[in-house]
């Protein structure tokens, strides 16, 4: 379907085309939203032109002439914009956005294996008509074209140079004094193992002749070439793009997963070996046996290397959260437009990194929260004016890292949560009794938003309804071992705060045994471990309770929770908790704290309630990894007993 000649398109070709196409479409979409807000300059138009141009070239190359023709018109439009033959109007922005949607549609068809050539051509603006004065021309805060130009600098290291990394580093240092290094191959932070003989970097600097001077003082390295990066329309084939692309390599996701699994195995073996070494130590001090001491050292080293490897692989699986965030500005804009509100989404902390798997799972919950913010948070323009707020509503999407967690805040500057309205709804839905409603704190009221059944068909709108409530959002976060909470200030706005672990693949856990089954409890949820005795075991209303430093905690048998037999007289309780909920789990034995590799139970088992997966212990034994939140749900439903 694709090629006319003898060349056939492989799956890899298609995949590469699609990935690149998505990047280009993203550039176009972000650009279109910029255009709409008016904060653009010639560079933006240039970037959009280039994206359309490159995509056109790529489409033509794989024989998708229909798409190429469509893009030709889009490219021409940006060329006219660039040449100021037409002006940016709301209609034009809409046209570009619709064009982008049509492109996405074509790409989706292409991904399905169809040839999307039978599409309507992109409507071609008549420059003369569009540029007519008096129209609804949007103001452009045209930025001064900067005096800086981009150069591609190629460096060559002498063949006899013993430490090319040092020379290249020095050269980077010198060049960074001249101007900004936009990109480099090899990258500066990966230089330590560099053994190559040439390096390429993209430098923003005013004059090319400065480059040579800067490098003159360095030995064993010299300037091979300085080329200005094409700022004019890229020639077919787009040299400019290719140079920027040399810094990274695309790795297939399954290759990364495989690497991650292998490292997981290595982590297990390391644990096994250090267990063995610890066992050997028991009898006599090392000094008596040189080989034993050697083994202990090797084991220690193995541990360090494994840890390093683990962190590096983990890093390779991490992607900047920008990948997830970048689809939202368009979403928010469209949602706002549909409900007659002007809403602008601001993105912060886009370089925060997150495990790819987790990122995939976050798309839907975040979409839901944003819909919610546009629909229920941001007021309509009239109300905002009355409240003395700018007409345009603002939603900020912020990501940051905090001790092994990524925090994502969705902050709107809308009306905040109407406590009374929430209570009324909860009463009407039967989630709350009138007596309970009286005593609720603000926090508890806000928590009601996440109660199952709180959001119902009655308030289904095109935007946030669909019968899926925030309870579904909370459930998806819990699947990721994350949490969500909401903070609201009446009249000032609402913040949804999501807390997600950086990665799910490796975690520390407390291993416990009940009967012959071993369970792993994620260490983050373990509050404390208690030896049970007559003094701290109590019963109230027939329910076992653990008393601990003045408070009473519900006690459940781990074996019973997991549908096993009742095991009498198990001597320990592990108190697990999240937020303000906690529960004590009765177990038979404690096996210590370990680093475990979380493995999925597989498609056949799907998501099993109460379990997040399984792990393999050093002994080869299997342990199931408990989802602590599962126990806590039960705890929340039980009446709270408080000792005074």
């Amino acid at each position, binding site marked *: 379907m694709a090629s006319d000649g003898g060349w056939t398109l492989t799956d890899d070709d298609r995949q590469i085309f699609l990935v690149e196409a998505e990047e280009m479409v993203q550039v176009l979409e972000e650009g279109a939203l910029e255009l709409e807000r008016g904060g653009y300059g010639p560079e933006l138009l240039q970037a959009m032109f280039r994206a359309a141009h490159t995509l056109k070239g790529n489409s033509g190359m794989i024989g998708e002439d229909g798409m190429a023709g469509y893009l030709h018109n889009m490219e021409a439009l940006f060329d006219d914009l660039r040449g100021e033959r037409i002006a940016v109007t709301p209609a034009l922005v809409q046209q570009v956005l619709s064009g982008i949607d049509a492109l996405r549609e074509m790409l989706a068809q292409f991904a399905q294996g169809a040839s999307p050539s039978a599409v309507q051509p992109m409507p071609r603006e008549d420059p003369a008509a569009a540029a007519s004065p008096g129209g609804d021309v949007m103001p452009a805060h045209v930025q001064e074209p900067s005096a800086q130009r981009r150069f591609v600098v190629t460096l060559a290291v002498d063949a006899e140079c013993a430490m090319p990394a040092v020379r290249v580093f020095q050269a980077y240092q010198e060049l960074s004094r001249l101007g900004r290094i936009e990109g480099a191959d090899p990258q500066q932070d990966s230089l330590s193992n560099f053994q190559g003989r040439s390096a390429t970097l993209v430098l923003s600097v005013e004059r090319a002749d400065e480059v040579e001077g800067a490098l003159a003082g360095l030995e064993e390295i010299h300037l091979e070439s300085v080329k200005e990066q094409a700022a004019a329309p890229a020639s077919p084939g787009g040299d400019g793009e290719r140079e920027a692309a040399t810094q990274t390599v695309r790795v297939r996701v399954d290759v990364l997963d495989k690497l991650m699994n292998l490292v997981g195995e290595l982590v297990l073996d390391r644990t096994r070996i250090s267990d063995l070494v610890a066992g050997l130590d028991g009898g006599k001090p090392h000094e008596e046996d040189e080989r034993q001491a050697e083994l202990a050292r090797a084991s220690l080293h193995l541990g360090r290397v494994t840890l390093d490897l683990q962190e590096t692989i983990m890093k390779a699986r991490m992607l900047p959260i920008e990948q997830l965030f970048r689809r939202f500005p368009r979403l928010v804009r469209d949602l706002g437009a549909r409900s007659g509100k002007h809403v602008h989404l601001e993105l912060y902390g886009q370089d925060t990194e997150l495990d790819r798997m987790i990122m995939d799972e976050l798309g839907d919950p975040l979409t839901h929260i944003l819909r919610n913010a546009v629909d229920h948070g941001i007021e309509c323009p009239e109300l905002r004016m009355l409240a003395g707020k700018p007409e345009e509503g603002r939603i900020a999407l912020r990501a940051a890292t905090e001790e092994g967690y990524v925090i994502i805040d969705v902050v709107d500057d809308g009306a905040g949560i109407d406590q009374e309205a929430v209570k009324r709804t909860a009463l009407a839905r039967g989630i709350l009794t009138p007596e309970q409603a009286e005593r609720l704190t603000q926090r508890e009221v806000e928590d009601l938003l996440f109660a199952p059944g709180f959001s119902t068909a009655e308030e289904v709108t095109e935007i946030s309804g669909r019968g899926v409530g925030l309870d579904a959002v909370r459930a998806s976060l819990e699947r990721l071992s994350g949490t969500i909470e909401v903070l609201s200030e009446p009249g000032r706005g609402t913040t949804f705060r999501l807390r997600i672990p950086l990665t799910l693949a490796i975690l520390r856990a407390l291993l416990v045994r009940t009967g012959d*089954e071993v369970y792993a409890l994620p260490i983050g949820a373990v509050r404390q471990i208690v030896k049970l005795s007559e003094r701290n075991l109590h019963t109230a209303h027939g329910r076992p309770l653990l008393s601990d430093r003045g408070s009473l905690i519900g006690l459940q048998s781990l074996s019973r929770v997991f549908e096993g037999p009742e095991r009498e007289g198990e001597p320990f309780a592990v108190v697990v908790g999240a937020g303000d909920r906690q529960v004590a789990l009765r177990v038979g034995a404690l096996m210590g704290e370990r680093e475990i590799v979380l493995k999925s139970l597989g*498609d*056949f*088992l*799907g998501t099993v*309630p109460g379990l997040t997966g399984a792990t393999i212990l050093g002994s080869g034994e*299997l342990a*199931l990894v408990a989802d602590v939140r599962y126990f806590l749900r039960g705890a929340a439903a039980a009446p709270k007993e408080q000792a005074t």
Partner: protein
Amino acid sequence: MSGPGGELQPRGEDWELQVVLFEIEGVTYGVEVDRVLEVILRPEVSRVPSAAACVEGVINLRGSVIPVLDLRQRLRLGGDASRATHIVIALVQGTVAGLSVDGVLQVARIPVASVAPPPAAITGPDVRYVEGIAKLEGGLCVLLDLDLALRPEELLAVRGDLDGK
């Protein structure tokens, strides 16, 4: 058996199937050899709470967590898995799963000509996964389509029922 089309595709009279034969509760079953990754002695199987009845549990296969499925449940054979001696590690629905079996007999070459369609008496929605009955020297063998016998959504549906009661 389950070729790319999921159906038996005789390609001429001399076409043969290579089938791994195993026994459950005295009945001989066969699955296509390409499906079978290996056969292992049955290790300790860890129970998975709240999983479907036909999921016996999980095992550690050289560092991978593999679900073990009990065909007895699915094939309505009765008995229990404690008699099983081996686990057939096979590709089912594109994922790796183990099947508890009472014994593995052999790998047999079965001429396609000797495979009869399932008798009318046992057809019906429950036996879609029987591809055919093959005549062997020692008796009959039921050829199974594992993809049909063990569809994840069916397994999940079973669990849903248990949860519901």
